[in-house]
């Protein structure tokens, strides 16, 4: 992690939630991946990554989320993304197909309800 991004790990019931605030790029993608790994458990059905507070997401971050979607699928779990409305981040998810690789939700509550 570095000074441009903060990842808050939370648990809602059994579901782990990572709120990513700030800018995700090649300088911190590895550190974020480590934080997400630390949040994963076998008890839950899903891992929720909340990108509402994310102001920047480059291909290193997109790649990281694709890799997590795949890893969770192999464990019979689901990566759920929270993408708020018409933000540049939602646009990037559309351009790269990330929004088709895993379910996306407009709010955290919606993502938790689906988990």
């Amino acid at each position, binding site marked *: 992690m*570095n*000074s*441009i*991004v*903060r990842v808050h790990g939370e648990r809602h019931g059994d579901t782990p939630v990572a709120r990513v605030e*700030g*800018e995700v*790029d*090649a*300088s911190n993608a590895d550190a974020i991946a480590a934080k997400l790994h630390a949040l994963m458990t076998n008890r839950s059905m899903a891992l929720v990554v909340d990108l509402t507070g994310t*102001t*920047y997401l*480059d*291909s*290193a971050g*997109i*790649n*990281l989320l*694709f*890799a997590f979607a795949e890893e969770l699928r192999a464990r019979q779990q689901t990566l759920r993304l929270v993408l708020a409305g018409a933000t*540049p981040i939602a*646009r*990037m998810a*559309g*351009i*790269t197909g990330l929004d088709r690789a895993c379910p996306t939700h407009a709010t955290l509550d919606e993502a938790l309800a689906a988990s």
Partner: protein
Amino acid sequence: MSPVTEGTAGARAERTLEALQQVTDVALAYLPLEELLGALLERIASILTSDTAAFLLLDESRQELVARAAKGIEEEVERGVRIPVGKGFAGRIAAERGSIAIEDVDHAEILNPILSIKGIRSLLGVPLLVEGQVIGVLHVGTLTPRIFTDDDHNLLQLAADRAALAIERARFYEQRRGVEALQRALLPDHLPAIPGIELAARYRPSAVGHSIGGDWYDVFRLGGGLIGLVIGDVMGHGVAAAALMAELRTALRAYALDGHPPAEVAERMNRLLAPRRPTTMTTFAYLVLDPETESVSAVSAGHVPPLVIDPDGSTRFLELAGDPPVGVSNATTYHEHHFAMPTGTSVVLVTDGAVEVRGEPLDRGLERLAALARREPGVERLATAIGHGEVTSGRSNDDLAVLAVHLAELPDRLRTSWPAEPEALGAMRHMLRRWLGRRDADADEVYDITLAVQEACANAIEHAYAPGPAAFDVDASHEDGLVTVAIRDRGRWRAARGRHRGRGLPLMEALMESVDVQRTDEGTTIVLRRTIGRPVAP
């Protein structure tokens, strides 16, 4: 005058001359202080044919004489003998600032037992004086009773005078070397290089004895393209003030990098310092500059107000007053101030040593600072002038620090170079955002172009495996609504490997009108183009 007297006078003159030569030998001037004192004692003992000789130097803070060098009574130094000023033989010499002779030690008041144990019978001592101030005592002793003549007194005083000057000079250089080393260790050795941000800083130690003080400045990048600017002043001088300064500088940086806004940084600094009252009062100003929004948030803990030079060249002081220095009271809250800093504006931060002259109101110094700022264009020249003490015309003895920042226009044709490391990406993005924002790109256009350019830069960083410190260039231009950005590295293009790699190029293609990758033996250049005002992405 009889021939005999003449002869005696001649012999005396010769002896005096020889003594002078012995103690003023230029070769001595290059010795470190300890060796100098030893060499002087040898010569003095030989001129005066004494059995012992010793230097005691004044410890001003404790008003004690400390044995620093001795011949014949070396134990004095080994045992660290200390004599209070005014007490005993040496102490009285220092207090009375005149020579004292003791012909029979057995019957005199002697504080130092070593002198009696050694069997010293007679003593002669003189003060070491520099500009009328006592800096120590020089004394000689004999194991046989001796009546010291006026000549002996004069010769010893002569030797003491020369020695005092040499000691003072050696101390001065020793101290200056120490100060310079300390300063180098404590202040940033270089300021961050940020396109569109001009920075200049100076520190000058106190004019009195070149003693280091507690003034400091600091500049660091925060996340999100923000830049932290600090000027501070720990009360007091010397190594203790400098050490506390180093501690506070690090603490402030740590609080700031942890993401705390200016007022909270000040409150944390206060909580850190308040338990050490009352000797550690510190003032500082901490500013966070956001070049993209052209704004500053700031806090001042009782510090000299920052000077603003507006783009039209007029000057004003920022009203940050009201909050006290840190370390004064536990129960202090600090207030954050926000103000606009349009492109073309400069801000000058100083410590009081740069502006304040004793016996004169601070406002006078501030007026002179503002006048100097109106005369000297550019932060580099201004910082140099302030660092030379021009505001106070050399009438301040205090140490001084100055930090000046100028938010410069980014030109239509922008040429920048960055170290090939991922940490450069954030800084590059923020510069590009500011450049695009100044060219009326809308929020989506700014985001898309920035992301595409950053993807190319990330490629450059990954491919930069040429020997030597690797770098990549980002050149941008804007003409008739067309933005062209060329990203150049000196490495070989490599196709992305791994399942989840290789999204960079498709992203660039999705976001820009054209993406040209030019690969040569010298490196790879990616040229990206996009017209502003015509959306290409869905």
